[in-house]
């Protein structure tokens, strides 16, 4: 048991309480101070998370983590169903479904909560500047924004801290709901509403699969809900493969992987801090976290792992190709997020053979990239938000340019983020990306299909090249060249307020340093740290895959130089050619490989036809029958309605007639 268990529950509780407080008293009482509960609760949670992390680190150093069952703590019984008196062994177990509010504290969850609370607090601070206009007037939905962000933080913390799948699912749905609320934050914009609905529905598909996956886990593990029971391979006889595949589908929905990736670019309709927090740093990584959490199971089914790595690779390649030609800054970042998430899935897919150290390496690589990516992508999004704020919501790369001079702090922040994303040494992305590629390389040696993993590895390096290229394309187009301002600015530009630039600077430091700080060359190695997750085989010695490092660095540099040649050198003709040229490949990329159109034609059109038929059936057949039935009393009523003529005397006359009839009956009976 950790000491931290006593106050672990407060970490999600503070933001949730703050969220409800803001919802209730925000619009009337707090008004322009509505950010206070959110920031204070986030900060308290961050401090608590640091204490928890400290506790975990201490426990690792004293090797107190040996007993796996000590990492979970149950606070109260959540609910209980069924009749324990049912006959039959399986019915008894299945009937007595018992879910507890139990949290799990291990290196994985502690790393996640520190990252989530830190970024959440920082982005909330950024939002206090972002959600005001240039005169300092707050957005009409200011309290709603911070209430939703608070709730999101609470749900995300529950998601990563949960010790049973039901609680995890609750957090999963909570973040989905908050994401929906925040994408549709400016609900008066039809596009925002549409995007919110699209995000909610597409992730819903994944959520259904996830729930089915959890259900099959529950059944095949002998009706267990807690992770201790679920992660023991001895508990299973069969059905792990199916459950893992379904869970992977769920993760695809949340993390915007290939079949279900279409919602993420549209989700940029939300405010930029939301894009940074939810759609880059935290919520979309929930899928990665899920797979990392269940890695022992996934590692035991290499077929599923091959699907995972294939999907991850494909998504990262696809998203990188699309990002090449986009002209919307935030959209480029969104596709880059998809691409990097694909990278994480590649890492996770490399974890095969539970008896070797590969699963541990895969998890640590994925989580390493998750953390670094969270920092530099949040930084990039916030910088983009800052640009957007200064440019009066214009981030079309064709209409802006040369902002290096007018937005110096934003420029530095974006540059740091871009360097980290491009994976250039010694910035953050370099370390984690190399880790991932090394793991894949490692796996190709251990697998039965080495050529497959080698192919994935090669594509990964190609994607690294593409990443560097499109990142710096966006960078050069935005900040270099001749100063170009959209007409909305009326010629005036000023740097964003301090509440926005300070988080940018802080994040820049992290984006630069966190990669090296968590690498194997320092005592804070993430690999050592995550290796202490109970149930993993630990690798004793570190071997550095210099081949991979070399290739990746070369790819990154090549991308950077190419982008400079095309867009940064001031050579207008090349840029013009590059932008204006139109051939099939570029059209394909510009139109996002027509995925939306394909989905529309293949899935939505037949469904619409079905809806149309159902509507016809409902309107003309069902309603017709109901109306027909309703008409029968109406016809009867038509006979008697004239009685109701509004004349008092007529009513009195009718009354007297009735009395007379009764009296006649009485007289006859006497």
């Amino acid at each position: 048991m950790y000491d931290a268990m006593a106050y672990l529950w407060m970490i999600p509780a503070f933001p949730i309480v703050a969220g409800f407080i803001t919802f209730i008293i925000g619009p009337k009482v707090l008004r322009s101070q509505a950010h206070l509960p959110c920031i204070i609760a986030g900060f308290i949670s961050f401090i608590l998370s640091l204490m928890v992390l400290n506790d975990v680190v201490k426990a690792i150093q004293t090797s107190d983590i040996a007993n796996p069952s000590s990492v979970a703590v149950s606070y109260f019984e959540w609910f209980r169903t069924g009749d324990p008196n049912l006959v039959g062994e399986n019915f008894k177990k299945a009937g007595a479904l018992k879910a507890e509010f139990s949290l799990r504290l291990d290196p994985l969850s502690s790393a996640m909560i520190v990252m989530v609370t830190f970024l959440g607090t920082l982005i909330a601070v950024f939002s206090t500047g972002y959600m005001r206009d240039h005169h300092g007037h707050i957005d009409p939905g200011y309290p709603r924004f911070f209430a939703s962000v608070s709730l999101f933080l609470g749900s995300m913390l529950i998601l990563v801290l949960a010790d049973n799948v039901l609680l995890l699912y609750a957090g999963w749905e909570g973040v989905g709901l908050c994401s929906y609320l925040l994408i549709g934050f400016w609900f008066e914009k039809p596009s925002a509403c549409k995007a919110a609905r699209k995000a909610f529905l597409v992730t819903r598909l994944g959520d259904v699969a996830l729930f089915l996956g959890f259900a099959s886990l529950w059944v095949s593990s002998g009706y267990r809900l807690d992770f201790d029971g679920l992660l023991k391979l001895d508990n299973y006889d069969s059905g792990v493969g199916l459950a893992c595949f379904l869970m992977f589908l769920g993760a695809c929905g949340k993390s915007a992987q290939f079949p279900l990736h279409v919602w993420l670019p549209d989700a940029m309709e939300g405010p930029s801090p939301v894009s940074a927090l939810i759609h880059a740093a935290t919520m979309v990584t929930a899928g990665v976290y899920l797979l990392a959490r269940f890695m022992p199971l996934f590692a035991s089914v290499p077929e599923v792992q091959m699907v995972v790595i294939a999907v991850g690779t494909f998504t990262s390649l696809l998203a990188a190709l699309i990002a090449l030609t986009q002209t919307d800054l935030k959209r480029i970042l969104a596709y880059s997020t998809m691409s990097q998430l694909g990278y994480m899935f590649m890492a996770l897919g490399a974890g095969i053979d539970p008896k070797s150290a590969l699963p541990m390496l895969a998890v640590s690589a994925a989580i390493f990239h998750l953390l670094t990516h969270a920092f530099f992508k949040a930084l990039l999004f916030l910088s983009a938000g800052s640009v957007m704020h200064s440019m009066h919501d214009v981030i079309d790369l064709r209409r802006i340019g040369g902002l290096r001079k007018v937005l110096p702090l934003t420029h530095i922040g974006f540059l740091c983020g871009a360097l980290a994303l491009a994976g250039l040494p010694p910035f953050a992305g370099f370390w984690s990306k190399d880790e991932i590629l090394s793991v894949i390389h490692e796996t190709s040696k251990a697998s039965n299909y080495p050529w497959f993993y080698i192919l994935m590895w090669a594509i990964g390096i190609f994607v690294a090249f593409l990443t560097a290229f499109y990142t710096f394309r966006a960078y050069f187009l935005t900040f270099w060249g001749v100063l170009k301002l959209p007409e909305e600015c009326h010629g005036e530009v000023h740097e964003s307020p301090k509440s926005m630039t300070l988080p940018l600077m802080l994040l820049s430091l992290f984006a630069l340093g966190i990669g090296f700080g968590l690498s194997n060359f320092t005592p804070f190695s993430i690999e050592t740290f995550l290796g202490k997750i109970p149930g993993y085989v630990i690798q004793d010695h570190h071997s550095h895959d210099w081949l991979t490092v070399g290739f990746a660095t070369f790819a990154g540099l090549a991308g950077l130089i190419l982008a400079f040649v095309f867009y940064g050198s001031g050579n207008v003709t090349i840029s013009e050619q590059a932008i204006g040229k139109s051939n099939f490949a570029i059209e394909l990329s510009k139109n996002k490989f027509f995925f939306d159109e394909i989905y529309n034609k293949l899935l939505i059109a037949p469904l619409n036809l079905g809806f149309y038929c159902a509507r016809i059936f409902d309107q003309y057949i069902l309603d017709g029958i109901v109306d027909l039935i309703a008409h029968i009393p109406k016809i009867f009523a038509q006979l008697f309605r004239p009685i109701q003529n509004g004349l008092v005397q007529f009513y009195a006359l009718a009354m007297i007639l009735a009395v007379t009839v009764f009296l006649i009956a009485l007289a006859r009976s006497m």
Partner: protein
Amino acid sequence: MLDLKIYLILGAILFCIGLIGFVSRRNMITMFLSAELMLQGVAINFLAFSRFRGNLQGQSFVLFILSVAACEAAIALALIVILYRAKNSLDVSKWQDLREEDLEPNEDPEILLLDTFQIEPMPTLPVAGHRPAKEEDASHV
């Protein structure tokens, strides 16, 4: 010796006459008087029973009827005043707003049975030397 029956019949006659008045007359004041007449019939009923039961319960009941009738008169007259102010008429037929929506207002069709005793009013000559009043249509021609 008169018996109970004849008093009850007298009460019934008054009651029914009041009833006819209430149902057929359109002036709200006359309708109200008719209602009071019905109360008189009831009062006679009560007093007759009281007399022929040899106790005073019926008489006290009539006193309560009196007080209720007084209240009724106060309220009803007040209502008649404001109804009159609203439509500038005492005609109860002007108040049929609570009828079914699509019904035409009742135009009071009369069953003209037994109206064979109608006599056309005699033509009257104008006073000599005065120009007879013009017909209204003539001015438009």
